């Protein structure tokens, strides 16, 4: 079955500083940033423990559902339909939010979204906001933008709070402090949490109680809350946040003003569609049958909850991704992070190596789709290569995003963008062309094979006699080199069997 994708487009290339800013690009390419993480043995222990635990939980609860594969198909189909009708669904969402007393704002990029939110907060006269855990506001760097105008943002998700108090960056979509062990968390709380008992232990219950005491005071005095949204239902204008702690619900119900920043791809057509995702998301993300708190709200309800509601619809590169007919499926992502937890690369490097708010396999495709591949030395150009294409991510994705296929496609877009921008090919491109040339013809290939066989004399006990140039020395640093055989298979066949077909 093929689905008509509605808005055909061509991949958009080139630098995108004008359309996507915020926390989407690190300061170094992936291989360099990964080196630091790999050297941190505590980090690798924390990650291996956390990812293997959550991996096992997910696997167990997914096998309980007899129609899991049908649910994945449904999730994938609903998202494909949504992307094909995105403009009309967003307008429907807007009309319904407005009809129920909310205000809708459209933000083309991070700068515009930050300006809208900071203006709204300043108009209330508040000098602090409470925040529900949100990837979109992390992506646009909202906390920093608020700080710049004198507004303090309090993260209220426990893990986000750990990251904020530790002056750190999140390293996982769902578990932003996954790289921290409990001893480190105790240390951060003791040093940074206002009013904390400095003799607290690293018992999880003690740490949670300390955070609770701290956060209660913040909840009770905050007048403005900022949230993201897991889903926005177009048919009624209802927003949804899915969480585990109940701190999100505190933010969504206590303050007078609620500002929600939602990526435009988070819209779903109807409540029936929402039902599919509310089954897929918790099992894929936390490995729970159902998440403890699902909050939904529609506009403003007099006398109940926030009396002022603003929805900021964020593009920030999403329409760029939408224009890429294969890459647009990355917008299907519901931020469950199952792909991070099964990724053998993420498990070793952690999230900071990716440089973006979105790490792991989904980040390796989504980030360059949002910011564009430059074909130059932008750190995000290295992300499509940060995978062995092992396919574990595709197996667990609840909306069946074919991440390996998109990675391969982005690699092609990257090399082509490079060729467009540079007169001279890279050494790699020249080598690839030379190999392809020799492989395009059997006689040339046989000669190349015999030439390669001579290289066997240059290898002794697995090590080359002369040091190999980069990047080939990347192999011999940790593995012995294979010795080409003195006689290739085809020469053996010709010698022993004569010419074949």
């Amino acid at each position, binding site marked *: 079955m093929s689905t008509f994708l509605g808005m055909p487009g061509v991949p958009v290339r080139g630098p995108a500083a004008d359309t996507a800013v915020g926390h989407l690009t690190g300061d170094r390419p992936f291989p360099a940033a990964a080196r630091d993480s790999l050297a941190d043995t505590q980090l690798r222990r924390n990650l291996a423990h956390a990812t293997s635990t959550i991996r096992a939980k997910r696997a167990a609860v997914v096998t309980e559902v007899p129609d899991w594969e049908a649910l994945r198909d449904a999730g994938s189909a609903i998202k494909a339909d949504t992307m094909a009708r995105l403009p009309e669904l967003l307008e429907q969402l807007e009309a319904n939010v407005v009809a129920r007393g909310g205000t809708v704002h459209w933000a083309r990029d991070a700068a515009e979204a930050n300006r809208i939110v900071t203006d709204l907060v300043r108009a209330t006269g508040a000098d602090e906001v409470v925040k529900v855990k949100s990837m979109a506001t992390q992506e646009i760097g909202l906390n920093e933008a608020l700080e710049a105008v004198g507004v303090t943002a309090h993260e209220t998700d426990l893990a986000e709070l750990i990251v904020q108090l530790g002056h750190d960056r999140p390293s996982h979509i769902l578990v932003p402090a996954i790289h921290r062990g409990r001893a480190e968390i105790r240390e951060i709380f003791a040093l940074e949490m206002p009013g904390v008992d400095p003799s607290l232990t690293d018992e999880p219950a003690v740490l949670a109680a300390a955070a609770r005491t701290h956060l209660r005071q913040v909840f009770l005095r905050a007048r403005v809350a900022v949230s993201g949204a897991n889903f926005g239902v177009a048919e009624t204008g209802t927003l949804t946040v899915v969480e585990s702690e109940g701190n999100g619900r505190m933010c969504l119900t206590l303050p007078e003003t609620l500002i929600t920043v939602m990526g435009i791809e988070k819209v779903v057509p109807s409540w029936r569609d929402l039902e599919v995702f509310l089954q897929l998301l918790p099992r894929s993300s936390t490995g729970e049958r159902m998440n403890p708190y699902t909050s939904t709200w529609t506009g403003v309800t007099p006398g109940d909850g926030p009396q002022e509601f603003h929805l900021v619809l964020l593009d920030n590169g999403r329409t760029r991704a939408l224009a890429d007919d294969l890459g647009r499926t990355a917008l299907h992502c519901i931020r469950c992070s199952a792909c991070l937890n099964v990724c053998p690369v993420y498990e070793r490097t952690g999230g900071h190596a990716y440089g973006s708010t979105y790490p792991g396999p989904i980040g390796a495709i989504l980030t360059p789709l949002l910011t564009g591949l430059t074909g130059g030395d932008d750190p995000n150009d290295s992300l499509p290569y940060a995978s*062995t294409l092992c396919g574990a991510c595709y*197996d667990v994705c609840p909306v069946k995003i074919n991440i390996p296929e998109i990675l391969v496609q982005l690699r*092609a877009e990257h090399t082509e963008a490079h060729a467009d921008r540079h007169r001279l090919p890279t050494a790699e491109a020249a080598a690839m062309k030379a190999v392809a040339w020799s492989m*395009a013809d059997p006689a040339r290939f046989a000669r190349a094979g015999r030439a390669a066989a001579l290289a066997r004399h240059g290898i002794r006990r697995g090590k080359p006699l002369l040091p190999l140039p980069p990047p080939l020395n990347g192999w011999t640093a*940790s593995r012995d080199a294979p010795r080409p055989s003195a006689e290739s298979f*085809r020469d053996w066949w010709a010698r022993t069997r004569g010419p*074949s077909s």
Partner: protein
Amino acid sequence: MKVALFITCLGDVLFPEVGKATVAVLERLGHEVVFPRDQTCCGQMHTNTGYQHDAAGLVRHHVEVFERVLADGCEAVVAPSGSCVGSVRHQHAALARREGDEALAVRAEAVAARTFELSELLVDVLGVTDVGAAYPHRVTYHPTCHSLRLLGVGDRPLRLLRAVRGIDLVELPAADSCCGFGGTFSIKNADTSTAMLADKMSSVLATRAEVVTAGDASCLMHIGGGLSRLRTGVRPVHLAEILASTT
């Protein structure tokens, strides 16, 4: 059955013993093997490194060579590599379509439909799990990612191995975790690749096996390269070589 051998470029130049073993197993079972000498490479390295235009020429060549032998009485194409068969099955037609060549895509699909990884051919097409092999060694099996997830070979290699006389087959811990090879990933991201390899080697050593086997010479080259650098004494041996062994 008349079967065409797709030797793979790596198998041809670096690991001819794997090809010879594949021929030996099939001939012992009474099948005829032909080797189309014009074959070169499936183009996977080019595709996966971002050089689709260069790969497209190799795909065209591969399709031409193997559709000719399939028209000429061969009923199947076999390769001792899950990864290269994965490329034929899941990349060739898509690549041809992206290059705007629908006719080539259709031809590629026809070749792919009759191309099998060795354990698939033996178990599914030829209906055999006991190939009459004997291999008196302690062996652990690494299910390579492309065999496991791209092709879905499941337990076919293990069923073949369990039927081998004298083998002491021991389970590999965290078997489905990638070894870190990933083609050019192993040099572009050499440090991360090495970290993954280190964990894979720990798992292999924990089994106290003499031999680590797999259905892909490329992953074995990676795991074996690490095991050899550490002078562990554990040998990488391709699945085909174990199945060909009779002593």
